[in-house]
């Protein structure tokens, strides 16, 4: 187990370097990094050259990358477009997005798994068909359409929720955005759970559980669901990273000042440091989430042993 963990952590290094290098190169190709520093006008060439020298942008790209990474590991993510350290931006943006992601994950787990179990046990019945159709609709309609539509209906027309989230983004205001963010994954979780339940419900060990005289609820939850959740947990785990990065659209719609919003601003203003910094952290989140899922996998299925 310890050896496995060490090996996995070592494997994360090349992935981390590769991903960050790629994003570093892409952002550099994107445009002139100093262009955004002079406000709306273009910088005059003398100032631009001076700024470039100041930021070390006249050095070769690999050297820039090495310097940047060196700084990152001392906790210096550089300066954002508003002249403040990127870390300061992160400190305000990440808690908001983490809260939003948590709301979304809770929706995925509670609604997705419940619907999956209900439909999996009643395959081919009207409930199953209805839910299946609904998931198909959710999967095929892009998030910005569902998001804007719900915002218009619930927020503007009926006034049930605030159409845009206040800067502090309290939990209750994140319910609708969380649902929108979760929607597509929720549909996948439903389908995945449904298939898994339907597949396992005729399993021999389920028959044994019934023959033991266990109440139906216990048979379903302890025996059937426990086995059927293994692939679902894997999906939800890897989805954490995807949700945090994918929150860009949802955060734009509901005006949430989270990671997605800051990334968007960073790209708009061509602020290399912000973009690379945020993406670097997201890559880390993704890698750690994946590692945790793999470890959880062994807990859920004792037949899997890591050596």
């Amino acid at each position, binding site marked *: 187990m310890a050896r496995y963990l060490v090996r996995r952590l070592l494997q994360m290094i090349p992935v981390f370097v590769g991903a960050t290098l790629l994003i570093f190169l892409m952002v550099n190709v994107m445009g002139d990094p100093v262009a955004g520093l002079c406000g709306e006008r273009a910088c005059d060439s003398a100032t631009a050259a001076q700024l470039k020298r100041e930021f070390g942008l006249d050095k070769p790209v690999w050297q820039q990358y090495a310097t940047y990474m060196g700084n990152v590991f001392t906790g210096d993510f550089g300066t954002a477009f508003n002249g403040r350290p990127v870390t300061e931006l992160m400190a305000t943006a990440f808690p908001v997005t983490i809260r939003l992601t948590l709301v979304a994950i809770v929706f995925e787990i509670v609604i997705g798994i419940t619907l999956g179990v209900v439909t999996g046990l009643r395959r081919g019945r009207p409930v199953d068909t209805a839910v299946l159709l609904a998931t198909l609709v959710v999967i095929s309609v892009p998030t910005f359409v569902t998001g804007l539509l719900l915002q218009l209906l619930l927020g503007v027309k009926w006034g049930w929720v605030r159409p845009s989230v206040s800067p502090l983004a309290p939990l209750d205001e994140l319910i609708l955005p969380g649902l929108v963010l979760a929607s597509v994954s929720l549909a996948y979780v439903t389908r995945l759970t449904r298939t898994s339940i339907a597949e396992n419900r005729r399993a021999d*060990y389920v028959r044994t559980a019934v023959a033991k005289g*266990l109440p139906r609820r216990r048979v379903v939850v302890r025996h059937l669901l426990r*086995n059927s959740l293994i692939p679902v947990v894997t999906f939800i785990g890897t989805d954490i990273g995807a949700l945090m990065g994918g929150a860009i659209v949802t955060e734009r719609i509901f005006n949430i000042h989270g990671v997605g919003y800051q990334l968007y601003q960073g790209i708009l203003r061509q602020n290399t440091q912000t973009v690379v910094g945020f993406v670097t952290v997201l890559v880390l989140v993704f890698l750690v989430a994946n590692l945790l899922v793999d470890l959880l996998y062994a807990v*859920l299925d*004792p037949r899997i042993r890591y050596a």
Partner: protein
Amino acid sequence: MSRTPVTKHDEGDGMTSLEMAPTDAGADGAAPLLEVRDLHVEFAVRDSVTKAVNGVNYSVSAGETLAVLGESGSGKSVTAQAIMGILDSPPGRIAKGEIFFQGQDILRLSEGERRKLRGAKMAMIFQDALSSLNPVLSVGFQLGEMFRVHQGMSRKDSKAKAIELMDRVRIPAAAQRVGDYPHQFSGGMRQRIMIAMALALEPDLIIADEPTTALDVTVQAQVMDLLAELQREYNMGLILITHDLGVVADVADKIAVMYAGRIVETAPVHELYKRPAHPYTKGLLESIPRLDHKGQELYAIKGLPPNLQAIPPGCAFNPRCAMAQDVCRTDVPPLVPVTELDGTELPGRHSACHFWKETIHG
């Protein structure tokens, strides 16, 4: 059908002519532990109906072992599932019949009452212990669950009980292995755990559905011996479902041979081996490989078991039977008592063959 289905059940009067003759325990007039009467089970498949069980009658008394013998698809497992109340339904459905357990028609009980019987009063041992045990729960959890659910026992006490049970079925180092998962045990040990689980609440009836089929021959004997020993000790009724004639001989008291969802012959175990009274049983016995016939071709019953969606009219075995006459293709042979040539009844012996006399007496 020549037999009249029993419509009224008077528990007191015990045996009617239609029931399988009670062997030992029933002889004093007490009702047997379990009695299946004219059981019919169907499965709805697309636009047709598979008739898996077509009028089965059998009974088991406390301390008695009934072996139900038959090929795959003969309805032996489905009958057992109907008794346990674990038929896959839908598509499965009990079309007709009664199942009396401890004097009460359990088919009339509510699902909740049936559930309380399962595990506590009647238990089942399945064929493949690896797939029949939950792969993600420890054996201790699965054993202890019986006590926690049925008796409301605490986690700690139920664990102690689980260890005790594992000791009981002679699993070495039970206390250390109680937290292990099914895949960490050998096939024989896993089957012992299945037995322990069935035994947990000391039920009155155990149904063992091919308990040794998935095991090595040497392990088979050990597991079978253990099962027989525990059955004697707890004085349980045991229904042993098998297609292995070798397994049956040592442990069973009586045998019921099934074919196409019906019982075609019943007999005390050694009588059946000596003098079968049905051509199908005879064919089964002749197809056992024998050491003294080395080098000869093995005997096999020609043909295949019937399609249960289209069972042939008359005797279901007629297309494969060497003795079949016209009457076999039209009339379903009733299960009748088998007698000696002079008319002396042979206790416990019945055959559903128009020509049982010719079969048993040559």
